[in-house]
């Protein structure tokens, strides 16, 4: 079960994701997060409450990142939970969220710690 709550981050409005972002939740996640992105200039997602994330969930986030880029908006993921860090690490997708290039320049070591590399500047 995925729960999405309004919260704030450093004074900015943000969304707190809790529970599982998985295949059962991706339709809802696409609609609600896609809608949220359209409503504001910057979408801030707090991932600290995510207990589970699967490839389908990652795919929604990747799509959201692409939409943000297409619309010239910002998507910021922060406070990754251990579950998110593990999955991002396995799939080496931290780079996708960090900036717009497809291959993260430092992904070559293959043993990166992507959790805290994810930031939009």
């Amino acid at each position, binding site marked *: 079960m995925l729960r999405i709550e309004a919260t704030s981050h450093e004074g900015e409005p943000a969304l707190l994701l809790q529970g599982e972002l998985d295949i059962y939740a991706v*339709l809802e996640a696409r609609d609600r997060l896609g809608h949220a992105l359209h409503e504001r200039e910057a979408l801030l997602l707090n991932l600290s409450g995510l207990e589970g994330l699967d*490839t389908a969930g990652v*795919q929604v986030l990747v*799509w959201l990142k692409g*939409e943000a880029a297409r619309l010239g908006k910002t998507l910021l993921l922060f406070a990754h939970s251990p579950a998110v860090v593990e999955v991002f690490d396995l*799939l080496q997708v931290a780079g996708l969220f960090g900036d717009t290039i*497809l291959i993260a320049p430092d992904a070559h070591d293959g043993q990166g710690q992507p959790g805290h590399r994810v930031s939009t500047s």
Partner: protein
Amino acid sequence: MDLDAARQTYIIEARELLEAMEEALLALEEAGDPTEPVNAMFRAVHTIKGSAGLFGLDGIVHFAHTVESVLDRVRGHQVALEGELIGLMLEAHDHLGGLIADLQADQPESPASRLQGEQILARLAPHLGGGLTKAAPQAPEAPEGAVREGWHLSIRFGRDVFRNGMDPLSFVRFLGTLGRITHLTSIFSSLPQREAFEPEDCHLGLEIELDTAASRAAIEDVFEFVREDSLIQLVPPNALVEDYLRLIRALPEEERFLGEILVAGGCLTAHELSQALAVQKQEARQEGARLLGTILIEDNAVPPPVVAAALDKQKKAAERQTQELRVIKVSADKLDRLVDLVGELVIAGATAHARAAAAQGGGGLLEATQTVNKLVEEIRDNALSLRMVQIGETFNRFRRIVRDVSKELGKAIELEIHGAETELDKTIVEKLSDPLMHIVRNAIDHGIEPVDVRQARGKPESGTLFLQASHEAGSIIIEVSDDGGGLNKDRILAKAIERGLVRADAELTDNEIINLIFEPGFSTADAVSNLSGRGVGMDVVRRNIDELRGTIEVETAPGQGTTMRMRLPLTLAIIDGFRVEVAGASYVAPLDVVIECLDLAPFLESEENHLINLRGEVLPFLRLREVFRIPGERPRRERVVVIQHGELRAGIVVDRLMGEFQTVIKPLGRLFRGARGLGGSTILGTGEVALILDVAQLVQLAAEGTAAPSRRALAAPTH
């Protein structure tokens, strides 16, 4: 396919693999070359672990991993699989079975089970040798010191992978257990924009560098469940630039993009890539593109033998695939339905034939129905053979029981199996399992003596239990024999008198005394052990066998052993029958028990004692009229059908003989269950009902009817 179905398949497969593992383990205990059993066990555990990884069943992966590692060391002759380790492996096998059972019941592993698992792992640890004690990601097929090489895996998952209940993450996790992932790039390049994005479609592609000594097949197996709709390419270690070029050609993404990934992963240098791409462009411009193999050979990139070997391998893979397809699983319900329908078809065919015969000369109608009937017969045989299974699997289950129980009792017992390939109906096999278990346990518990007694009697220390199956005239014979002490007649008789089963002054033959063990409420066990003597006696065994329309007999010799012989029909559904008539009503006897047919008068020996003389052999007979109390006059010319059941023969006197007749057995209604001499009913082509004779009971009745009065002192089981 949804997740549940895939899991169900996994559970079934795991069960079969565990069975194979147990069989292999037990085979190890017998002498012989251990290589094949060890390999079989390794494969079983490896596959269980592999598939568990795909479903994210970490508990099973964790446990199976260590077991697999130990087996791997056994394969590498670093550890000897004997004595204690075999026992430990059996425990590990049982624990895995428990984990699978939990999975099926959809319940989490209990703390007790987890503790047990950890204990088994702890005891396995010493067999792992140094450095392998932790079930960390570890290439299972990598013997120490082997050269690890880098594979390149290029995967584009199919659209429906998520919907089919798969998560590519688990593949990545599992690859981590095969070796070390040195580089991984996730590609979402085909992801549609805006609302065109269907989040339940899978758009993931993976480019992976995997350092492993695992074989190509092992890596391919990881993707077994997604192989069909996904694009999966493996490039072996030390591959030529061309191989990567081929990979690039096969993938949907833009060349340069992929090339960069390959360069990033260290498979290609940037220089090699640009050269390769240039060559490819040039090739593309040429007319009549050459086959890849041709290119490689002509360009001297690969010597011809290599290509031949590759083709050969491809062919073998295709062959393997067809072999896998040769066995399919069908639910038993569907088979039952088919057999049921074929049964109806047999009846309908008979009806058509009867009508055609009655219509007389309808332009070859009779011939046509005859052909149809012949085909129906073949279909019937085929349908029935679908239900036939080998008894071996049931027998093999006893290996474990014999092993465990004999250990528990401190007896040395060997099990010998003969005729494991004998086939019989699945329903019968299922219903046979319990009585067989009881007989085997009895033999172990009461039959075979403890070691010291055997030594004192001058027998080999180790007792032997035989399980044997064979076909005999439309029946299957199953024997359980032991070389133990045999049945003690005096004790059986004393017990039977004590229990009031026979009168103290009854004169019984040896055979009758022995058959007392089948009487309800009889048990001779001096001590109630863990195994038998639980109140379920041989009477239940006999009842089970009776229900299967079979019989059981005992042969025993003091000090030499006991044989329990069960005679069962091959199938329960359809029989070839022999139809007879009494007072206008039809009765059917199974054709395979009919020995011959005679006129009564010339062979009559004694009307009073109901005996006929068949060329010197005196047989009892009985009249169906009398058995079923049918009123009316006996015809002037009576006929006898001589039937045989087991060792006994008897004559059944009827009015008319009607000939062979194929029939589907329908059970009798509840009201008629107690009717003696009847086994079922069937519907004739004309729509009339015919009753099927219970030959076993009739032969018994005939024998009793002519027996000496003392024999009736036996408490009859039924009336």
